[in-house]
């Protein structure tokens, strides 16, 4: 979605209506995709990223309500805004469409200005929704990164794109990444030092210290008595 323009799927089994709608949308600066029945619409929605669906109700094989129902069951498609454009303009049909999750319901004899306003509102709502989803996804990435730091599995590049954000979350990701990287680098340095740790004994100094003890009178007397003392302790003395 670029600015106030979007990529819109027009679903209608009447070619003329479809083409008319597509033309109007293109003139407003949108890009469009077309589907002439419900099955084709679902296929296109699953293979191409649209911002909005203009959906007819009366279609062969799978009607617009069924398409809407399938979309709401789909984890990826459930938040896609849908505007129903139908010849069935009785209250019951309108209520059914809204209850199934359509954003709006317009008669086929719609006023182009009204459709333009409704499309603008839907795209704006979708844009805000996308921003929110993106924000929450990035919050999850920061919290996942915190868990990774605790588990000592943190990848210092894991938050690189979150850190590119210009908002407060981006600042949090930048500060977090920097601190985690510093801790990681410090741990690596310490680990390296530990790996390089050698037990370096100054043999000459050690020999002097040993001699100081073993040449003492007490030590020599103790050494002389050692066997007797061991016999006592082993119950043989």
């Amino acid at each position, binding site marked *: 979605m670029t600015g106030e323009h979007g990529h819109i799927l027009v679903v209608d089994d009447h070619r003329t209506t479809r083409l008319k709608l597509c033309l109007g949308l293109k003139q407003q600066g949108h890009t469009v995709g077309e589907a002439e029945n419900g099955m084709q619409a679902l296929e296109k929605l699953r293979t191409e990223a649209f911002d909005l669906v203009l959906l007819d109700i009366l279609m062969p094989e799978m009607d617009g309500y069924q398409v809407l129902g399938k979309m709401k069951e789909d984890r990826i498609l459930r938040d896609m805004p849908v505007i129903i454009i139908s010849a069935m303009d009785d209250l019951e049909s309108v209520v059914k469409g809204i209850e199934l999750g359509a954003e709006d319901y317009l008669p086929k004899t719609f006023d182009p200005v009204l459709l333009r306003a409704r499309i603008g509102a839907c795209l704006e709502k979708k844009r805000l929704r996308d921003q929110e989803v993106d924000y929450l996804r990035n919050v999850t990435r920061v919290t996942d990164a915190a868990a990774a730091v605790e588990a000592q599995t943190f990848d210092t590049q894991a938050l690189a794109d979150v850190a590119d954000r210009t908002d407060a979350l981006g600042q949090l990701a930048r500060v977090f990444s920097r601190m985690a990287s510093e801790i990681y680098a410090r*741990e690596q340095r310490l680990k390296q030092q530990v*790996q390089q740790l050698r*037990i370096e*004994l100054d043999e000459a100094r050690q020999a002097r210290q*040993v001699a100081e003890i*073993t040449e003492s009178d007490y030590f020599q007397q*103790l050494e002389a008595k*050692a066997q007797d003392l061991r016999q006592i*302790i082993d119950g043989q003395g």
Partner: protein
Amino acid sequence: MSKIISLHSFRGGTGKSNTTANIAALLAAGGRRVGVVDTDIQSPGIHILFGLAGEQVSHTLNDYLWGKCEIAQTAHDVSSCLGTDQKGKIYLIPSSIRPGEITRVLREGYDPQLLTTGFRQLIDELGLDALFIDTHPGLGEQTLLSIVISHTLVIILRPDQQDYEGTGVTVQVARKLKVPNMVLVVNKVPDMFDTAAVKAQVERAYGCPVIAILPHSEELMTLASGGIFALRYPDSPVTALYRQAAAVVME
């Protein structure tokens, strides 16, 4: 045969008394009859770990060395620390905490043969499987005597240069005194250390087996001198390491 096991460190603060108390308590909890002698006459402290207050101490090791009592009278049954379903027994032979008595024994010294005879009597009269000697850091006279009469010497060190140097001296002196078994415990090892590498390096440097690498444990530090860690946290990985060391010293 009963075993005399001395725990020693070249410097203070290595966790010698804590290690002694934990290993001894685990053996007693497992059904052994164990004695713990505080020969750290200059700075006694292990009685605190067993919850033995100064006023509860009727006779000390000092009293025995001055001929004021029999050695068996200095043995305090502290088995209650093991809990109600205790299987074994643990006796503590404390040193005096009275400053006058500490300076007297340091000034006058004592007869090594008397102390040795006392240890043998303790083993016989209390029916001990093992007698642990908690020594004073360094290589003073009491410590040298403890080394001579021990079947096993456990040297405790931390992974730092000063302890490495001091342990080197102790190992050489102990070899001259022909101590039958000598093992090492590396204590207070930071998390980031590769324990296998530390074990290999220490064993290579001293030619002695390392029977436990004990981590620098927050839980242990929190409990500090307030009790015996292994009894309070029987399922802790640190307790498993103490248990492993206890099994080795009794082999």
